[in-house]
């Protein structure tokens, strides 16, 4: 009988707390979104499962010595996982569209306004009782507006590790919601005539240009913003492996096997931060709201900048491509293409939107570097 009592006291049923059950519900919701709705399944599935594992009573996944503890400790606390992902993203990214039309870098820059405006918003939220975000917290939340998962996780792990779970979940959820969030803003800020603008075909880009590009970006980061070199450096390494054409094996590994392996553990480790005591707080609600605001402002400023470029260029730039300035590669570019096709079913903007899209990745990495340099 004593043995049975001891067994009972170790079961999940006897030890559940309401918070844990609720968080398992959140985990299940993420799994549902990933499996049934197809929202960023590559990340939301391991994150959701990690959330379930992290809230099992007496399992010790997140205690010192547990699997999730180590996955988080080794991969995220050190910043290694997001950086490896960034290398893979670099190896997956073709900068051809950007090099062919470098002015689109300005769109990628303009869309970063979402980040900095949200910084202000997060501090402003301190006026509401119950919120106490430090400047570091605010910066980590604001980077959600960069719409770049690895950058958000990297910055949050450096500036506000205790908010990491909520920030990562918000960042990936909004990236999945790009097709819902962006089109209304894009349509609100542009006229039908502007949406119908056809853009000139992009020029050919030589192989040398593509090889020099990552080196040039790295060189500039070294000179002006060393704080961003972990992110930009790994990104450029991946891109150089791709474009140099001499290390196809490494490039393929970085963009397939390696990024997949890291994604599994990154997702689990982020999920481990979705424990009841860390997630079920009023701050999480604030982070979710601020994230959406950051995203919307970034989209809006990107489109407004593109409108300005349209005016200055005499109507050669379709303002829709500005919306792709908020990284979220390649989803944002696809959304631009789709909205463009709705206005004119012969107008394919995908390649033109890829320029600002990859510019947005660089822009948010630079913005993250600035925030790290000032607040880190």
């Amino acid at each position, binding site marked *: 009988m004593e043995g049975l009592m001891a067994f009972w006291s170790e079961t999940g049923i006897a030890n559940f707390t309401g918070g844990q059950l609720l968080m398992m519900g959140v985990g299940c919701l993420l799994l549902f979104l990933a499996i049934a709705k197809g929202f960023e399944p590559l990340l939301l599935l391991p994150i959701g499962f990690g959330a379930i594992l992290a809230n099992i009573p007496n399992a010790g996944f997140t205690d010192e010595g547990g699997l999730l503890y180590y996955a988080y400790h080794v991969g995220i606390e050190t910043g290694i996982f997001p950086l490896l992902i960034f290398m893979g993203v670099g190896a997956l990214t073709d900068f051809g569209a950007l090099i062919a039309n470098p002015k689109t870098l300005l769109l990628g820059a303009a869309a970063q306004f979402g980040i900095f405006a949200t*910084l202000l918003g997060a501090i402003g939220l301190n006026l509401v009782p119950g919120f106490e975000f430090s400047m570091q917290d605010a910066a980590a939340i604001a980077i959600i507006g960069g719409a770049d998962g690895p950058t958000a996780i990297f910055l949050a792990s450096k500036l506000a590790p205790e908010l990491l779970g909520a920030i990562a979940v918000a960042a990936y959820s909004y990236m999945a919601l790009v097709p819902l969030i962006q089109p209304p803003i894009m349509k609100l800020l542009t006229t039908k005539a502007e949406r119908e603008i056809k853009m000139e075909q992009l020029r*050919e880009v030589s*192989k040398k240009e593509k090889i020099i590009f990552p080196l040039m970006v790295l060189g500039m980061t070294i000179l002006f913003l060393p704080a961003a070199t972990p992110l930009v450096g790994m990104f450029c390494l991946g891109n150089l492996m791709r474009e140099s054409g001499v290390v196809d094996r490494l490039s393929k590994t970085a963009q397939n096997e390696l990024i997949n392996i890291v994604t599994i553990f990154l997702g689990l480790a982020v999920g481990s931060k979705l424990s009841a005591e860390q997630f079920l707080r009023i701050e999480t609600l604030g982070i979710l709201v601020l994230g959406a605001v950051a995203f919307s402002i970034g989209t809006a400023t990107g489109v407004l900048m593109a409108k300005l470029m349209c005016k200055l260029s005499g109507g050669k730039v379709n303002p829709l491509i500005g919306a792709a300035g908020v990284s979220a590669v390649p989803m944002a570019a696809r959304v631009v293409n789709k909205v463009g096709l709705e206005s004119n079913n012969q107008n394919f903007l995908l390649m033109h939107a890829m320029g600002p899209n990859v510019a947005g990745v*660089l822009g948010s990495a630079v913005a993250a570097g*600035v925030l790290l340099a000032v607040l880190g």
Partner: protein
Amino acid sequence: MTSISEQLSDALGIMIMGMGLVFTFLSILIVGIGIVAKLFPAPVADIPAPQAPSNTAVATHLDPKLVAAITSAIHQYRAK
């Protein structure tokens, strides 16, 4: 309250400086890309351009006879 207004002005400062830096950084990059594009113009565009038409020209010259030969061969083969 004073601390919040201080924080807000700090955040505003970071916002202005951050956007300035992002724009400066990417603007310099635009100049850089422009210079590299001047130094290494896409030769790929020039070389295949003359080749491509000649290839297709040869191809079109050969096409009718080749196609006829191949189709008749196929017909013969299928007829067996």
